[in-house]
């Protein structure tokens, strides 16, 4: 039985929630969704300098392509009304989770196609210094599973992206988080004791101010992984596949949650919209602070989390007392890691945040 596109009656190739669509109408629907999110949620204004966190995965490659088409293409041949100055940011340090060489090639080709600037972390002294002080010095035996490793990578990467964006004059960064990734983050936040952060996770706009002047938005928060993968396939965009040897089903909380969501979605199609809709009913708290380690908003139903005093060693090996606030997840993380490793991370991250806040160089 041949299905027809619900819009143009051509032969349908994509069977989506909104009905069968041909390749062209499917792409138009995705672009329309993308542009509508940016305009309705106020993610960027006319003439803004926007950064894009490009990892080389299918999600961020789709984001770059969508942004490029939104800026340069229109059906009637006129130039688009969206006017943004786009810079791509890529963290190209080597880690067991990914090799940066193949990532940079796929990003460079797409950046060249739309004449976007590409800025890498290796070219930034402060990011290099942070990487050297943290990832290159930690003892891998400290990590009992890949969950902590993935989470620490994410904590570092987001900070470096914010720093790179600030150094290039971008106050807005677009992230390639899809609807599935947002739901995964919501579930992992709840299960790690960070339920307070739900309204910040579900919002496409960054309303937390966690990276000071830089806001990291998620314009693809309404687009599912399946749609993004389909889009990338139709457009023949190169991307780097995740390292499957490290991402076994139960290797980390993130992979467990993602596989659970995808399995559940097979049986109950409305799972992802349900989670997004229910989470959006949670109120944005008026009073909160930030976790000193991961910069997640912390609080408890109107109350602030009690601060903790730590003794950490600065670069000159002088011991000093610092007051920190840790979210529940980081408190558990601190118990799982050695004190030395945790303090190393904490001191470096706090110093980096200070540099980010006051727009100084780090190291």
């Amino acid at each position, binding site marked *: 039985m041949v299905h027809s596109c619900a819009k143009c009656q051509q032969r349908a190739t994509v069977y989506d929630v909104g009905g069968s669509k041909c390749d062209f109408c499917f792409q138009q629907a995705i672009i329309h969704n993308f542009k509508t999110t940016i305009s309705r949620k106020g993610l960027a204004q006319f003439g803004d300098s926007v950064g894009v966190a490009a990892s080389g995965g299918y999600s961020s490659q789709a984001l770059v392509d969508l942004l490029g088409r939104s800026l340069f293409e229109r059906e009637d041949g006129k130039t688009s009304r969206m006017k943004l100055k786009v810079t791509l940011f890529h963290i190209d340090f080597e880690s067991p989770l990914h090799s940066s060489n193949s990532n940079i090639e796929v990003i460079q080709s797409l950046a060249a196609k739309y004449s976007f600037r590409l800025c890498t972390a290796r070219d930034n002294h402060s990011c290099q210094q942070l990487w050297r002080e943290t990832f290159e010095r930690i003892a891998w035996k400290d990590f009992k*599973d890949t*969950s902590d490793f993935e989470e620490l990578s994410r904590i570092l990467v987001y900070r470096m992206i914010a720093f790179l964006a600030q150094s290039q004059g971008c106050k807005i960064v677009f992230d390639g988080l899809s609807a599935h990734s947002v739901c995964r983050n*919501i*579930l992992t*936040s*709840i*299960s*790690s*004791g*960070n*339920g*307070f952060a*739900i309204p910040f996770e579900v919002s496409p706009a960054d309303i937390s101010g966690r990276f000071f002047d830089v806001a990291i938005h998620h314009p693809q928060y309404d687009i599912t992984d399946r749609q993004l993968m389909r889009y990338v396939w139709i457009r023949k965009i190169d991307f780097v596949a995740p390292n499957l040897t490290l991402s076994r089903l*139960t290797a980390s*909380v993130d992979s*467990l*949650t993602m596989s*659970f969501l995808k399995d*559940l979605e097979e049986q*109950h199609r*409305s*799972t992802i*919209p*349900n*989670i997004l*809709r*229910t*989470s959006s*009913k*949670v*109120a944005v*708290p008026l009073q909160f602070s930030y976790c000193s380690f991961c910069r997640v908003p912390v*609080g*408890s*139903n*109107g109350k602030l989390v009690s601060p903790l005093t730590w003794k950490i060693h600065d670069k000159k090996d002088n011991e000093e007392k610092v007051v920190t606030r840790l979210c*529940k997840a980081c408190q*558990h993380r601190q*118990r799982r890691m050695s004190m030395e490793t945790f303090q190393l991370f904490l001191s470096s991250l706090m110093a980096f945040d200070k540099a980010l806040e006051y727009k100084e160089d780090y190291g």
Partner: protein
Amino acid sequence: MKRLCSHCEKAFANILVGREDKYLCRCCFYEYFEDTVHQTIVEECLLQPGERVAIGASGGKDSTVLAYVLKILNERYCYNWDLWLLSVDEGIHGYRDDSLRTVEQNRDDYKLPLYIVSYNELYDWTMDQVVSQIGRKSNCTFCGVFRRQALDRGAEKIQANVLATGHNADDIAETVLLNLLRGDHARFSRSVMEENGSYRTTDESVFNKIRRVKPLKQVYEKEIVMYAYFKKLKYFATECIYAPFAYRGHAREYLKSLERMRPHSISDILYSLSCISLNKEESKTRVAQQCIRCGSISSQTICKACQFKTSLDRGQGVLAVKRSGMCSLSKQTTQCCSESAERVSQYEADSNDAASSS
């Protein structure tokens, strides 16, 4: 390799309390478990001295352990609680009849009075009959609503002040995930408000609503199983025969996988619940009113149990769980008010006679 108990450091440890990463011997584990329950009761003022407490007893591990622990705490701290076992017979052949035998065993072992309420007496329907009409897909919806009202009615009959149920931390965490995954933001909001202690219906004292408490809410299911195992408590361990098809199974599966990786996940979910605040529209509590048919407390003119019963009587049970069917059903239900009000009053008269004679 044998380890010493983290608490007393004298005996060898028998159990790992995963969420606190402690190895405990049997005696220290009993103390830890009973202290956790007692702390929950005291900190949240769940039970007052001298109250009559109806314990929802299904014969399963949770209710058996709850009855046992409440009895111990009652004797240890002299709270003078008047403990009763309250059991519901849903009429599930091959499941409930066996578990009721276990409840009767508990009655004899712990020397607590037992009162049994059955769906057949209250609603003229057993769960087997309900499932034969509506199939296996939404039967938990019917059973849950009927059981809730049955427990309330049973507690009223024995003139209890409080109804204690054996819901543990795993159950509450599953419910939170279940409501989030299904998009049931009304129930999600209520569970948030309950955890925050802000869920109160208005005019509670006017309707003499019996309080519902969960003394085991801070205790993990694994700890309950180990407690029952070490204490050699007798309980009925078979799952409800209609349960495998429930949506809750998905949330449970995810939670168990998560617990294997991070044992503290369940208590973290409960902690997350206490941190969440709701939008003003979601946090409005419902006004309690009495069902015009059976007199039980409801947020609507006619309670859900009466609506479900009417739908079953008319052979339209499937419509009752569909939103589109509810509009037509609610109109039909109001027409049956007078007939069932007579039968309820007859049931109440019979039950009063039974209670006074016992």
